[in-house]
């Protein structure tokens, strides 16, 4: 139903229009003010902090240094390696989550005995703490007591004698796995919601036309699922670019797993470099926002469609 139709169907309620608008402003204002205080003000203050250098020895002593903190960060290897590692993590984990999540959704969309159980089991990892997910995968890959390492050793396969979290590449693989385990269910649920609104007739027509299961999936199901998958990709990418908990628990950022957020945290908390840490935080913020703008430009159609549907 279009909004024009809705408007035409509404009874005439003169006088309520203005009352509604006034009320709307009053109802939204408290949240907007609160969000301004807890989001805009801190970020503004972070920008101010990032333009200063603070004395480590004497509290409160600072001087304006302009963009020096940014220039230092952008010319440092640490920032660019954190940048690269964050994007590597995001690309690997999000693509695996989309494939696995879509596969899970297709399974959950079938009617079979045990579907309810499967749905519950699949949802369980989503509910646990990210920190616990990290610890769980730490136990899986521990050199001596881990399940993966023990089984690989027992079967005489390579990988059994590797200290997974102690070597770059392998450490990143464990972190990606922990993330996929925890968040593929989220993708599955979004895609499942998209699957359930595809009418049966579409599949019946495809079957009558002699389409095989695979070509039906590629030519019909996947295109119809595109908005759901794009939306899941956006949500997951935004989240993956902020990754912090998993490397913090699993490696403390060592062995090629330091993310942008971790680097900023280390400068700020461990090294007590408020100006430098703030500059790194703002750079992280700008990077994430830039990616979301790019996503919206490329996937704008899907998002606008979803937004119009809502109005």
């Amino acid at each position, binding site marked *: 139903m279009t909004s024009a139709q809705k408007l035409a169907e509404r009874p005439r309620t003169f006088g309520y229009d203005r009352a509604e608008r006034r009320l709307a*402003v009053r109802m939204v204002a408290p949240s907007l003010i609160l*969000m301004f205080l807890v989001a805009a003000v801190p970020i503004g203050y972070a920008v101010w902090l990032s333009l200063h250098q603070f004395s480590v020895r004497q509290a409160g002593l600072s001087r304006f240094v302009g963009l020096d903190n940014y220039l230092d960060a952008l010319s440092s290897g640490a920032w660019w390696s954190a940048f690269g590692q964050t994007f590597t993590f995001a690309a690997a984990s999000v693509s695996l989550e989309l494939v696995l999540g879509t596969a899970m959704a297709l399974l959950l969309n079938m009617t079979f005995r045990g579907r309810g159980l499967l749905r519950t089991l699949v949802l369980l990892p989503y509910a*646990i703490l*990210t920190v616990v997910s990290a610890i769980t995968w730490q136990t899986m890959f521990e050199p001596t007591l881990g399940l993966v390492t023990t089984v690989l050793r027992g079967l005489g396969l390579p990988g059994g004698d590797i200290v997974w979290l102690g070597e770059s590449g392998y450490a990143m693989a464990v972190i990606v796995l922990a993330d996929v385990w925890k968040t593929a269910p989220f993708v599955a649920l979004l895609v499942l919601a998209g699957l359930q609104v595809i009418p049966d007739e579409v*599949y019946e027509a495809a079957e009558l036309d002699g389409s095989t299961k695979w070509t039906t999936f590629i030519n019909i199901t996947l295109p119809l699922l595109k908005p759901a998958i794009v939306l899941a990709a956006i949500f997951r990418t935004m989240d993956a670019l902020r990754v912090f908990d998993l490397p913090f628990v699993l490696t403390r950022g060592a062995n090629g797993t330091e993310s942008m957020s971790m680097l900023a945290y280390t400068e700020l908390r461990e090294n007590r470099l*408020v100006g430098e840490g703030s500059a790194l935080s703002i750079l992280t913020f700008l990077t994430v926002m830039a990616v979301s703008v790019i996503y919206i430009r490329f996937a704008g159609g899907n998002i606008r469609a979803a937004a119009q549907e809502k109005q």
Partner: protein
Amino acid sequence: MSTVLEERRAAVQAGPGPRRTGKPLRRGESRLHPVTWIFVLAVMAFSLVPFYWLINTSLKAGESLGAGELFPSQPTLDNYFVVFRNPDFFLALRNSVIIAVVTTAVALVFASFAAYALARLKMKRKALLLTLILSVTTFPAIAIAAPMFSIWREIGLYDTLIGLIIPKLTFALPLAIYTLTSFFREIPKELEESAYIDGASPFLAFRKVILPLAVPGLATTAILVFISVWNEFLLAVTLTTSPESRPVPVAIAFFNGTSEYDQPIGAISAASVLITIPLVILVLVCQKRIVAGMTAGAVKG
């Protein structure tokens, strides 16, 4: 049209057509192809085996911990006793409950007003406001944590519960507004209109007619916000330093088991298992609500 379709379908089903030898796995199919079953079992295993191994590790101590046994030969609850003897564990639980309950409650009160206006009332620049609110949920927490760390240390809110609740609202509030907005949209518009005709003001219509109907949506939103606040780690680790204000995720990340003679991984696993049990119960009880909330407004049509 539909009769033609049905006839053709009947014809296809009756005929021995070569494609019918394989089992078509459409909706309504009740028996799965063996290969599909393998996938189902693989997905179940992927979801469950890590949990099993966490529990397995938590039941081992001493030598059997390092042996990598698939089943603990001498299961022991020692690791759990280590956790229970650690006062920090209970402090962290208390902190997490206070932080999550207060943050969820505050976010829900503010969000219920804002979401109603955004979902139902006439308003200028509604789409822009919603986009703005949604974009806040994608902010990297470090951009809030870094300045808060400096501000709180200056005004004395560093390492306090209230100092953690305030920045957690940055993410809890937009999440609550976004989720609630899609729930309010589902309530039929006619309800307010009949309330208007009965002489109710828009606010009275909201309070007396809409809010009671939105209770399931409010509950779902509360669960989602609660889980997200409970899980949040970056703000918590940046803005706290002592057991008196550390919430559960930070306490677990820094948990050392307090025993010198054991590998801490056993006690850490035990603490992880203990902290996961209530969340698993929450998921089992509220599964439908969680799924509805996670997909609310995300995919429609």
